[in-house]
């Protein structure tokens, strides 16, 4: 445990002093501040047209005419943050010839991957948590409406889901860093998978659903439902969609505001008259959250096993 802590502290110090941390932090803060500017511009209109009481949450969900909401930005940036903190975790150590020197120290091999993983999660949590809190702070000062206890809880759960989602991407890119020798290959593979899940799954889902159950002007309700179910079923293989779905349910309990395009759950919640209670929202987001956590655990477990079993070769 002591060796994990030593590696964790060293990695944490490395992350905080690295250029990639500063660049990501700057980028996320810039985006966050831009989106809060947008939401403050539009929040009055949004609050007036809304029937629910969750005004404070609109800081995160209100989009402008041109710029999307903070949630959209976040769903875009979290995978990037995760990938950046994981893609070179192991192969850099291997390529810099530090790995065999590290492994010749009296530490268990898993201490290395555990320490790096924990440091990555911590750094990512700081970036994500801090921007969400900063937005809450600025919003509180400007709109003057304090968040209710339920809103605070929703924000905390939202942070938790964001961290789990980032952890998944970090675990995935760390897996590539274990199995691939070159850092360029591991980052490109991780980005390719992200692009596939973020953009292509939706297109593929739509194409397959339309092929299997075409929604024409004369389509029956059964066909429309079939189309919807096929589309939703395929989209749900994407962690990006699961994340979007869960934060949508969590932060737009009434579903009165649509801020992300093609979010089917939001379409459904449009039909709801009353906002979901926190308990109901949690029941709704539970499967998506568990799926994200499970995916993160699976990716890390595979990285862990591969790394432990990887034989150190002399060359």
């Amino acid at each position, binding site marked *: 445990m*002591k*060796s994990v802590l*030593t*590696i964790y502290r*060293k990695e944490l110090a*490395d992350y905080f002093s690295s250029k990639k941390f500063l660049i990501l932090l700057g980028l996320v803060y810039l985006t966050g501040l831009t989106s809060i500017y947008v939401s403050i511009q539009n929040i009055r209109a949004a609050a007036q047209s809304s029937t629910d009481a969750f005004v404070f949450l609109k800081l995160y969900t209100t989009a402008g005419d041109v710029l999307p909401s903070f949630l959209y930005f976040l769903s875009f940036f979290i995978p990037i943050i995760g990938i950046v903190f994981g893609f070179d975790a192991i192969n850099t150590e291997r390529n*810099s*010839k*530090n*790995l*065999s*020197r*590290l*492994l*010749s*120290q*009296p*530490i*268990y091999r898993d201490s290395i991957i555990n320490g790096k993983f924990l440091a990555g999660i911590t750094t990512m949590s700081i970036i994500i948590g801090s921007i969400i809190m900063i937005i809450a702070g600025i919003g509180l000062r400007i709109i003057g409406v304090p968040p209710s206890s339920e809103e605070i809880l929703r924000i905390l759960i939202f942070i938790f889901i964001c961290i789990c989602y980032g952890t998944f991407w970090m675990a995935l890119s760390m897996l590539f860093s274990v199995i691939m020798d070159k850092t360029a290959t591991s980052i490109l593979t991780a980005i390719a998978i992200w692009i596939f899940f973020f953009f292509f799954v939706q297109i593929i889902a739509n194409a397959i659903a339309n092929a299997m159950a075409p929604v024409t002007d004369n389509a029956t309700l059964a066909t429309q439902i079939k189309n919807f179910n096929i589309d939703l079923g395929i989209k749900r293989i994407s962690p990006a969609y699961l994340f979007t779905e869960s934060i949508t349910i969590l932060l737009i309990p009434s579903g009165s505001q649509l801020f992300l395009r093609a979010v089917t759950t939001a379409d459904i919640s449009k039909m709801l008259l009353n906002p979901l209670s926190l308990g109901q929202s949690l029941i709704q987001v539970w499967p998506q959250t568990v799926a994200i956590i499970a995916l993160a655990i699976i990716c890390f477990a595979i990285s862990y096993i591969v790394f432990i079993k990887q*034989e*150190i*070769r*002399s*060359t």
Partner: protein
Amino acid sequence: MDNYIISTKNLTKKYGSKTVVDNLNLSIPKGQIYGLLGPNGAGKSTVILMLLGLAEPSSGDISVLGYKPTKDPLRIKSFTGYLPERVGFYEDMTAAQNLEYTALLNSIPEKEIPSKIDECLSIVGLQKEKNIVVKQFSKGMKQRLGIADVLIKNPQLVIFDELTEGLDLEVANQILETIFNLNKDKKITFIISSHQLNLVQKICHKVGIMSKGKLIGEGNMAELSKNMFGGNKYLIEVEIIGDVNNVIEKIKSLKGIKTVTSTENAIHIGTDEDLRQDVSKIVTNMDGIILTKMDIKDFSLEDVYLNYFKEV
């Protein structure tokens, strides 16, 4: 058994169908500097990795400091320093920070770390570079820092893999001198795997020669040259024009000649003394014989090494 810091019995390592280490039986006594020699692919580095528990043997037994690397790798690594062929450090950290990290991983109490770092850096002559980032270090400085890095844990055994590879002669000699002094003063056992035989020869008490995963020769220089050249100290090489057989008969009659062998126009004379004058007299006094070249050399590890591979 207690006198041996390392012993292996029928140690075998296979990667798929390829046998990299083949029934290796190795015994290295405490306090020695042992040279592990062999061409690329001989299995030296794989042996080293198995000694440290970083690679698992396919079969056979290993004992390092009385522990089995497969069962007690942490214990072995607590007392064993290892410097791989291409040593890596965190380039953005200073020499002291790199050593501090190693010290922390070795659970050295934090209070003792600064003095320990100073001590190790002074042994390798890098005190002044203590606070310089490693990316500014030359290869030789990195190797010296590597030695400091392995010394930080007070090792009983240190393993260097191709330690002097790519270093200029002066730096390599400085490093070997440091190792020699550490062995003498601190009684640390060293295993040095190297291609630079002339350098290894200077400090090793004993060498093992590996080929295709097998130990094909082992001993100190005297033992090895005895096996190879009948224990002669010098080899006089004579090249002539004329009948070689007549000359050989005359040379054999000289006092102190141990062995005489010949090829088409060259004669190789094994001896413990420098008999060049006597040999040249014989050759030049013979009718119809012209001496074209005469050379003498004392047997080096390289000769032993090359002869082993000529035989293999």
